């Protein structure tokens, strides 16, 4: 892979480098849902670029927030972010975990939601339905990503990964994952 770092000179401003890194991270995908990137997912909260380069390379700090506290994909994402940055000549990298404010599906990009749907996973609702601890509360109407019917039902709040619930379409009968509101 061609390094972009060669386009960076001592005159490149930290803001320009920051833009380059945001762009680069769009190529780092979620290992569990490979169609969306860490940027689509909204887990990259901030990027800081040191104003002056040092002999160890210009310091880059990535602030990352987990989707779910136990999500094993987070460690893989961290490693892949590091790899992409290293491939492009950034060697002085810090990745800091931030927990607050807690990640929410509201931070997912529109682009990411569309890609989820095309992949067969129902994207989270635009307006966050607040999850309360009340038992047997009325379920949100989730659209089937295959036939677009809203005539679907919840099978389980807990799906194949921490971030998904399991639904079934009453019309086309297809079971599907719903990227649940959080």
């Amino acid at each position, binding site marked *: 892979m061609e390094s972009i770092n060669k386009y960076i000179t001592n005159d490149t401003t930290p803001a320009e480098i920051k833009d380059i890194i945001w762009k680069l991270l769009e190529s780092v995908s979620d290992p569990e849902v490979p169609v969306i990137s860490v940027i689509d997912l909204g887990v990259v909260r901030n990027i800081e670029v040191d104003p002056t380069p040092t002999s160890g390379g210009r310091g880059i700090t990535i602030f990352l927030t987990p989707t*779910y506290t*136990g999500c094993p994909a987070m460690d893989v994402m961290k490693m892949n972010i590091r790899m992409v940055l290293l491939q492009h000549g950034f060697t002085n990298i810090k990745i800091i975990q*931030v927990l607050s404010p807690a990640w929410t599906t509201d931070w997912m990009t529109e682009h990411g939601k569309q890609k989820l749907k095309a992949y067969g996973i129902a994207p989270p609702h635009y307006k966050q339905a607040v*999850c309360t*601890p009340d*038992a047997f509360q009325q379920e949100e109407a989730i659209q089937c990503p295959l036939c677009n019917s809203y005539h679907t039902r919840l099978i389980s709040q*807990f*799906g194949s990964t921490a971030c998904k619930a399991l639904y079934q379409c009453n019309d086309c009968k297809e079971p599907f994952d719903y990227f649940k509101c*959080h």
Partner: protein
Amino acid sequence: MNTKNLIDYILHLADNALIIGHRNSEWCGHGPVLEQDIAISNIALDCIGQARNFYQYAAELTGNGATEDSLAYLRDVTDFKNILLIELPNGDWAQTILRQFFFSTYQYFLYRQLQNSIDVQLAAIAEKALKEVTYHLRWSSEWVIRLGDGTEESKKRMLQAIDELWNYRGEMFYAADYELEAVKEGYGIDPATIKNEWDKKIKSVFEEATLSAPLDASMHKGGKQGEHTKHLGYILSEMQFLQRANPGAEW
């Protein structure tokens, strides 16, 4: 500030999350139906994730090379500060569900307060975990209702579970010294202040489940101080075996 007390307080929260997570993980591959096997395994994962956040914070404060792994895998039974309720064997599905319901209700009200702690890291961990615990509480409430107000057999199992676990609930609200100190220092929660909300939630779900709570108020305690049932030793010997046999092993 007394750092040792803060560490004890965090370890208590961490040990609770780890041990319930470990117990729930025992269901992985053994759940009554596939969807619920996945559900309880997800809940286990959330709990172990919470434990990791707490252990990482405790390790940072402990220093001297402590890590989340050394705290989880290299401390012995008497160092563990989890409550007795969660170290009990899983029993049948009803007993596992009821325990989860008791514990999730407790965690829900505890984290709701803790997210306002003056200790920003504790507050952040609680804020994050609360969203997950909300799902756990909803799921376990629904199962208590389903089984309690279900068939003759499921109701019988639920009643047995209540008999088995009821006397272990009191310890949750009986503050250990490090909890009282944590309240005094301003970062911790007095668990006694959660009891009313906990009682109310249990009562309302029990009513819907056509179950009633026993009046017996006796309680088993000691876990918070490191005095455990024999069961914790068995958990640790299995959970810690690999790290003790192959120190520092990673995969």
